[in-house]
């Protein structure tokens, strides 16, 4: 009995020693040298492996950073400028300054603003639906609403709002990795400057149709009237293909365009409510419709501001048509 036990233990030990020795030599023999800095840089990166930088995972970016001569074009959108600065310091280079950005959904075509004209009955994928036809509504540019952006977001920063049928971005969680931008087949999502205190002004529409057509399809679409372009004191807005676009790096957040926009296509986010003298206190929807002016809406902007139709809107779109 004892003998058996001793033999067993000894055999096992001997096997272990042999295996260890073999492993040791194999590891020596087949060792691949890698720049140790890659490991260090990788540790500095957030480790989300989101692919937002365009490389397969954080290690991919780390090795590219170590191999490259400059930091140009290499940036971790998740870690932001802080991370890149510390990596640049470690590698003895100068970091590119980059403003923090955030993903912005440029469509306000909720179920109320943009009535449905047909029912889609296929797999729940924006890519499939948009390759099939113009979409469930009269607007062939707007959000399809099947959440391809939500599916690709690795940070849980996007979710569908069941009431509006549109995706919403959580500014805090969004790392501006740009995956949703690539996933959106309608190219609605854009990375914009995050802005001080996350305050932003942007045109929440990408419809390139003529004003009257846009108008018919959606209450809050950009009709390409160009009023905002004329109003902007900083030349931050340009009008192309019947749709206005605000350059987030030129915009100084004066919000004059928001007041001017006849359809309410320009959204402002995270601003404090406007002082009463400017446009009157924020009123409930019904009252605003009665007032019949393009009353600006205070934050948060996900609230639906196009529910009311105003007279001047109609005039405006007619003018554009002419």
């Amino acid at each position, binding site marked *: 009995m004892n003998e058996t036990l001793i033999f067993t233990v000894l055999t096992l030990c001997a096997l272990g020693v042999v295996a260890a020795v073999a492993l040791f030599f194999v590891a020596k023999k087949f060792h691949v040298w890698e720049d140790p800095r890659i490991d260090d840089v990788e540790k500095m990166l957030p480790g989300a492996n989101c692919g937002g930088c365009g490389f397969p995972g954080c290690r991919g970016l780390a090795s590219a950073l170590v191999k490259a001569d400059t930091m140009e074009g290499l940036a971790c959108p998740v870690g932001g400028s802080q991370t890149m600065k510390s990596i640049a310091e470690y590698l003895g280079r100068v970091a590119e300054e980059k403003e923090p950005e955030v993903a912005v959904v440029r469509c306000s075509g909720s179920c109320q603003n943009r009535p449905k004209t047909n029912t*889609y009955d296929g797999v729940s994928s924006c890519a499939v639906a948009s390759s099939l036809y113009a979409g469930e509504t009269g607007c062939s540019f707007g959000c399809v609403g099947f959440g391809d952006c939500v599916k690709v977001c690795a940070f849980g920063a996007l979710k569908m709002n069941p009431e509006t049928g549109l995706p919403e971005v959580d500014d805090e969680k969004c790392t501006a990795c740009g995956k949703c931008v690539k996933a959106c087949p309608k190219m609605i999502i854009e990375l914009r400057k995050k802005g001080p205190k996350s305050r932003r002004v942007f045109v929440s529409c990408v419809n390139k149709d003529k004003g009257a057509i846009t108008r018919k399809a959606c209450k809050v679409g950009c009709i390409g009237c160009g009023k905002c372009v004329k109003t902007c004191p900083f030349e931050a807005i340009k009008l192309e293909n019947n749709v206005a676009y605000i350059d987030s790096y030129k915009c100084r957040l004066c919000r004059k365009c928001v007041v001017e926009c006849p359809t309410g296509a320009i959204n402002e986010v995270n601003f404090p409510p406007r002082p009463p003298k400017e446009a009157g206190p924020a009123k409930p929807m019904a009252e605003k419709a009665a007032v019949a002016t393009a009353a600006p809406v205070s934050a948060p902007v996900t609230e639906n501001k196009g529910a009311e139709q105003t007279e001047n809107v109609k005039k405006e779109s007619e003018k554009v048509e002419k």
Partner: protein
Amino acid sequence: MDKKLIVSPSPHIHSGNSTQSLMRDVIIALIPAFIVSIVFFGFDAVTVAAIAVVASLATEYLITRFMLKRPNTLWDYSAALTGFLLAFNLPPSAPWWMIVIGSIVAIGVGKMSFGGLGRNPFNPALVGRVFLLISFPEQMTSFYHPTALDGTSGATPLAVVKEAVKNGQSLSEVMPQFSYTDMLLGNMGGSMGEIAAFALLIGFVYLLVRKVITWHIPVYVLGSMAIFSAILWLIDPNSFANPLFHLLSGGAILGAVYMATDYVTSPMTTKGMLLYGIGIGVITILIRTWGAYPEGISFAILIMNAAVPLINKYTHPKRFGSVVAKKA
């Protein structure tokens, strides 16, 4: 327009096949064999089948309802089929508690633990059967002969042959006691559903006509069994049983037609089916001839189930245009 038209990608029509209809067809195909076993084993057959089906359905319901919190999947009939097949693989004398344990293992371990229908790597009914065979060898191998008067000495033909070979007897002395007609009709000892070869074959024809399965797997399994056993038999007919005996005895036909063809656990391509079928056939004969158990098709199928992902990875269908056209 008030009414909204539906828009969906093509195609706009469907064959009408459903998981449910396919499972139902397999159950229907099993009915002739079930009738034969009722004829031979009487009320025992009904009891075993009823307990197995009810226990399987209950296990599936409880797991989907309380553990996975998913919608009820009883009506796809897959659990019922698993229970029915498990019953076919049990001796008619199996005690009720054993059947229940087998059903719980089949559904719980064999199927639901992998994520439910479509994800299980092993045939659930066979997982249940093999679990019982290993845990309760006594009860699982005590068969009674359906028509013998004493009603208890019902060793299966395969067990008789195995015993004989072990004792050094020549098979030419043992073989004459088996009548191929009896084996075809089901007048022999064995599991509840495996005895009646002809009834199982009627079901096979039904499945082919309804296009539920293709001929590939059953033919490959039985064919490779026949060829391999024929080679052995030609070498030494006194130590190895002949091919016809192998095909008609034990669970060969039940396994080849109903168990090996299980959708989830069989290969996707015809090339893969060939490999899979040959694997099952050869392993079955190996186990029957040299293994510890008299019957080996359950093990053979489970072993080949494990190889299916690998087979799927390396066998692809012949693509259109991959054959270079010969110039006329």
